[in-house]
């Protein structure tokens, strides 16, 4: 009699725990880069909890497949990453070790942002002698607000698939985000008028989408080949070229070694600016884009 009572209470407690756990259960989103975590927050609101595997100071090409990341993927309901080979050095290991069926390639929980938009720089010849090129095209799409909007739409659809009970909320969040994003795009279009057509030198070829959107001319890259660090012979050749044709700005990512960019800047007097490739902690996509545009405007005068 007594044991029965205890068993009953025990089962009851378990049911309560499961029930409360269900009630507060959020969609766990594992974002490979902070911009996708931020976008997921915009679209998921309070229905999701997001985690970013990397931060603005880290190069997403080279990330250690740390145990903590395996633990995070293990619990994820949705993976939001760039794709197109950007995370190829670490994400496949994490996925294989996680044992999480929901987020494996081809599943609903596997969302690659670059799958939703057209990519630039698709190589016509695939050969490693050309450096670390991405077969699918250039993966650094996050700096194009127009592509960001397309990704937002597709990501919202995916959230609605995963969590159909709240599809109305996701649709509302998307509409809300799109309105604000479109307004921001209008504003940015005004702001970037006087930087259009500027000539820039970039460190790594990770700015093509920003270039396309801002109509900037890329004159050269500091890396002799994608992923290969700038060497002295390449830099001195570059210096000669810059002296002949005018360049307005040198751009490198805030996670990159500034040595090469500052060297060229000192030799030529052209400003070199570190631009955050992604959102900072506690920064919205809007604030980040404002910041990026402001940095280019301020430094290319």
């Amino acid at each position: 009699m007594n044991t029965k009572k205890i068993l009953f209470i025990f089962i009851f407690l378990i049911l309560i725990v499961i029930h409360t756990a269900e009630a507060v259960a959020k969609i766990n989103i594992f974002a490979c880069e902070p911009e996708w975590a931020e976008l997921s927050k915009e679209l998921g609101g309070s229905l999701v909890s997001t985690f970013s595997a990397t931060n603005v100071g880290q190069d997403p090409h080279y990330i250690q497949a740390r145990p903590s990341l395996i633990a995070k993927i293990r619990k994820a309901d949705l993976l939001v990453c760039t794709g197109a080979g950007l995370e190829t050095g670490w994400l496949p290991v994490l996925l294989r070790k996680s044992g999480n069926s929901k987020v494996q390639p081809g599943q609903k929980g596997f969302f690659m942002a670059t799958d939703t938009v057209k990519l630039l720089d698709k190589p016509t010849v695939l050969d490693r002698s050309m450096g670390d090129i991405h077969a699918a095209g250039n993966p650094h799409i996050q700096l194009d607000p127009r592509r960001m909007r397309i990704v937002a739409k597709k990501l919202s659809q995916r959230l609605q698939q995963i969590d159909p009970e709240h599809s109305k909320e996701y649709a509302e969040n998307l509409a809300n985000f799109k309105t604000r994003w479109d307004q921001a795009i209008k504003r940015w279009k005004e702001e970037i008028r006087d930087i259009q057509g500027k000539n820039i030198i970039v460190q790594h070829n990770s700015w093509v989408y920003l270039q396309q959107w801002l109509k900037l001319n890329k004159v050269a890259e500091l890396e002799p080949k994608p992923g290969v660090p700038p060497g002295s012979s390449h830099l001195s050749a570059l210096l000669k070229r810059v002296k002949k044709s005018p360049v307005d700005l040198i751009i490198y990512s805030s996670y990159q070694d500034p040595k090469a960019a500052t060297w060229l800047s000192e030799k030529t007097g052209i400003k070199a600016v570190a631009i955050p490739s992604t959102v900072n902690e506690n920064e919205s996509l809007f604030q980040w884009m404002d910041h990026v545009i402001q940095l280019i405007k301020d430094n290319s005068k």
Partner: protein
Amino acid sequence: MYFFKQQTIKTSEEIMKKTLSLLISAGIICAAVTPVMADEQIELLKQQIEQLKQDYEKRIQALEKGLLAAQQAAKKNEQILVNVQEQAEEAELASDDNQQTIAKNSFNPEISLILDGRYASYQNNLDNYQLPGFSLGDEAGLVPEGFSIGESELSISANIDQLFYGKATIAFAEDDEGTSAEVEEAYGQTSALFDGLTIKMGRFFSSMGYLNEQHAHVWDFADAPLVYRALFGDQYRDDGVQISYIAPTELFMQVGTELFSGSSFPASGTHNGVGSWTAFARIGGDINSENSWQVGLGHWKASNVDDRKSENLNNSTTIYNGDSEINTINLVYKWTPNARTDNLKLQFEYFERDEDGDIALDDFLSGNSSSYHGEQKGWYAQAVYQMNKQWRTGLRYDHLSSHTKGSNYLVLDDAGLESYGYKPERYSAMLEWLPSEFSRIRLQYNNDQSYKDSDNQLFLQYTFSMGAHGAHSY
């Protein structure tokens, strides 16, 4: 003239009088009639005005309506235009789904080829190499002096279907009998069985030790740590099944077990069921985004080691029958600072092996046999610092010790299992140049005190990787 004037005046006066009278009479008539006429007209006018007003109001309303409609239409058009613009932009920038599938298929299966070769130089004679206190497995020798190619590995891997992932690695190796192709690894593993649970089956490297799981070409030094050479013949793998589970916790927690056939060193023989088994556990996490760690524990056991053969210095074979048990702990710590290209990796592994059984020289029938109880211990510690994308350097220290008991110490001595208190040691230093992620040139120096004559060793090694971009484990 005057008369005429008078006349005209007269007539004009008359006219005036007449008109006056007429006017007066008209006035009287008017005075009587006009009030009636005015009232009617005003009413009429009022009505007309009212009608006009209504007309205008109607017209204004109509106009307003028209304007509103026009405005709405304009707005609609504008919205349509925006939508069209958006659609056009999406058509321009969004991908079509067909392209996607093609791109994804293009790397199925992933094929990669590792080319490895080296130049080795030794001060001592290779034939004198031994590790006092340990009998070595087949592959535990040193790499040949001079130029040689190491193992060239061909790997093919792919998701087999929604449930399984498979990988096979064929190694081409050069030995005394010529070139041989060997199935180094061939396994299938579940990718989506049950949350956190993974089952691996086939031939694979055991997860019991940290370095053991990794292929030799991803090691940070040109040779295996002494303890791996002594206990496993460089690396332990067998045919079997592995079951592992990752807990749904913030901290990385993994537990697993492996069941093996028990036919490969340091186990031996054919067994009907499980010849050897392991259990392992790992815990890992981040201190912050720049510092991470992992601790692993492992246990290996073979209860029935049957005729394990190893060559000894007297050009005879040592045979062991008995049980064998290994316990191990490993620690890995990585420091990867943000916004920099340098990083540091610290690594430590400790193993101890207990064996209880009998040994014989060449044959148990020969009479040269002894009971054997051995306690063998070993560890290594290494630090590898990557200075930038293209340069890495590292230091490693190896240490072994053993304690042996047996009934016939002459047999133990001949078998090389008696160390007389000698503790093998080795100091290594390496420098790597990495032109890209796919190539590596390594220079390594060892001061090897495996046995009493200390040896100075130099390796120049290249490792090239072709094909699929391999992902690196922690």
